[in-house]
């Protein structure tokens, strides 16, 4: 028997996850074994914790090897007799971080590996980032306006700085003055634990159709070219990375309840509040359309838009 062993080492540092929280997978032995038939291979896997399960899928045929077939198991140890080839392997246990790897089993080889799963960190409170709500104000005449925003979650960043309120000198052309500085909009960003979405309507949109789709929708909701461009240049590069996105717009009262309400000293003729939730998808799902637009843009206008990713829009069983 040759004592050639496939060796490699993968090591890389991670910003946020500590090393001891990562799953690890080692191959201890990968060697030619004359007692194994040509075209076959034996894979032995030791797992921790002992109740961890192993799923192997033949990468070429897609055939899955789950339990009881060609497999013997003693506590914490599996032995598979398999056709040689490349397999997608998943090792998992409830409460632990899964290992997912591709593994190549060469003909007549005996391979022995160890999987060491680590416990998931205490289910962290999931925080959803409320991205970039920006507020534009277009009063009928130049006037001082006090604006209070009450987010469902909390602020993480504001610009200009929010100090119990924003107090601005607003002008009909949309420029906002605070002291000697001028702004086009008021910006905040926040986090909240979930979105209480009233009713899931929405559209499934192909990644490359993102820009056309958003242009059409934002026109419908009455955003002007500047607001529209700010929105599209912020979101399109993110959404276009996904094959599909399920997109839900929340507007008006739904925005107030789900994301943030506001209190403004000036009474605007129309108030447009628009929030986009999206979920990236690999496959297409049925579109159900967006809610009717409740506001017509006219006279003095308040505009606020924001958005965020939310993976609870389409449940797994709907995919």
């Amino acid at each position, binding site marked *: *028997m040759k*004592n*050639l*062993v*496939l*060796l*490699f*080492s*993968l*090591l*890389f540092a*991670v*910003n*946020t*996850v500590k*090393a001891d929280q*990562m*799953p*690890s*997978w*080692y*191959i*201890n*032995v990968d*060697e030619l074994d004359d007692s194994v038939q040509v075209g076959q291979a034996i894979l032995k896997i030791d797992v921790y914790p002992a109740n961890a399960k192993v799923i192997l899928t033949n990468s070429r045929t897609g055939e899955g090897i789950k339990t009881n077939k060609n497999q013997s198991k003693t506590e914490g140890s599996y032995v598979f007799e398999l056709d040689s080839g490349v397999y997608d392997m998943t090792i998992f246990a409830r409460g632990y*971080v*899964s*290992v*997912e*790897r591709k593994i190549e089993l060469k003909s007549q080889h005996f391979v022995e590996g160890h999987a060491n799963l680590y416990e998931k960190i205490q289910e962290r409170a999931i925080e959803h980032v409320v991205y*970039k709500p*920006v507020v534009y104000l277009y009063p009928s005449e130049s006037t001082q306006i006090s604006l209070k925003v009450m987010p469902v979650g909390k602020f*993480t*960043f504001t*610009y*200009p700085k929010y100090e119990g309120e924003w107090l601005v000198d607003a002008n009909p052309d949309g420029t906002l003055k605070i002291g000697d*500085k*001028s*702004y*086009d*909009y008021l*910006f905040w*960003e926040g986090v909240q634990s979930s979105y209480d979405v009233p009713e899931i309507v929405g559209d499934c949109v192909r990644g490359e159709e993102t*820009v056309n789709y958003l242009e059409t929708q934002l026109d419908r909701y009455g955003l002007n*070219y*500047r607001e529209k*461009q*700010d929105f*599209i*240049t912020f979101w*399109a*590069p993110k959404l*276009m990375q996904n094959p599909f996105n399920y997109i839900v717009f929340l507007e008006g009262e739904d925005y107030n309840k789900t994301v943030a309400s506001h209190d403004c000293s000036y009474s605007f003729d129309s108030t447009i509040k628009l929030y986009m939730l999206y979920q990236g998808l690999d496959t297409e799902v049925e579109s159900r359309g967006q809610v009717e637009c409740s506001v017509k843009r006219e006279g003095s206008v308040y505009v606020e838009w924001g958005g965020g990713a939310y993976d609870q829009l389409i449940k797994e069983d709907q995919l």
Partner: protein
Amino acid sequence: MRVLSVLIIALVAMSVTAKEYMPSYFEVTKRSVMKTGNGKATVKGNILDAHSEKPDIYGDILVTYGETVMTVKTSFELEIDPADTVQITLSSSSYDYESLTIRLYDVKANEAIQLEAYLVMYMVEAEKPVIYLYSDKSMSVDVKLDIKGELKFSYPTYKDGWNVTIEDDGSLSCDGKSYAYLFWDASYKQSDLVAKADEWIVVEKAKVTEFLENYLTNAGFNDREIADFVTYWAPRMMHDNYYRILFLEGADYDRAAPFSSSIKPDQTIRLYMVFEGWQSAKPTDLSKLKQTKVKRLDKGFRYVEWGGSELK
């Protein structure tokens, strides 16, 4: 029969949702113990780009083994001492590749080891460069960029250039629609943006917003552009205790994305920020920072652009 064993250490970050990511790796292709020799072992390695479509490694690779450091291009040969564990590090002198630590176990005297190292190139996203065009008179202009990286998204759509009319109200007309600015983003090789000798500025988290405001004001940006810049980047610079920041201006920016326009601007202001989260007990003394103050013109044709990249 002897079996060499022990080998793969895979410490891989697996956040559940993270996309599949292949780090730099290596494969031992041959190990054999010679009958005679000087008692040392030898390692011969080929260095390859892990992306098969780019077989050539870019720039120099530093090979480090103990006190030995050598600069190589595509292969190396080392004499090493037999040991239970031998560690060799490959790193890119241009920062273009993720470095790789090669660990060899149970290295015997007179052993010859051959391996292939696959290095993964870092790609950097050039995010949101936006171009503002101003003119006191309505005018049409062609703007072209020569982007060294790969253009990924543009809005309005970049079609071998933008043909833009600056309207009296300041809006930009392009293909029959109105825009407030021109937008593009791209993917870059790290060394297209960052050179080794560049001077970084280290800023405390709490001072980032104020620092950016001051720096951009001095660089000639107006309130609106500063607000666009700060609201885009500052929320992403609130996580680490310090941030290490590099500004590319003028010729440095042109190195990565030269632009040309059919009418020469009376004033051009371009600023690109490269940054990364940093740990440092020694933030830069910002009061000693030398920055030339740019006087912004309020007439004529003005071209203003900013963008940035976060290194990961």
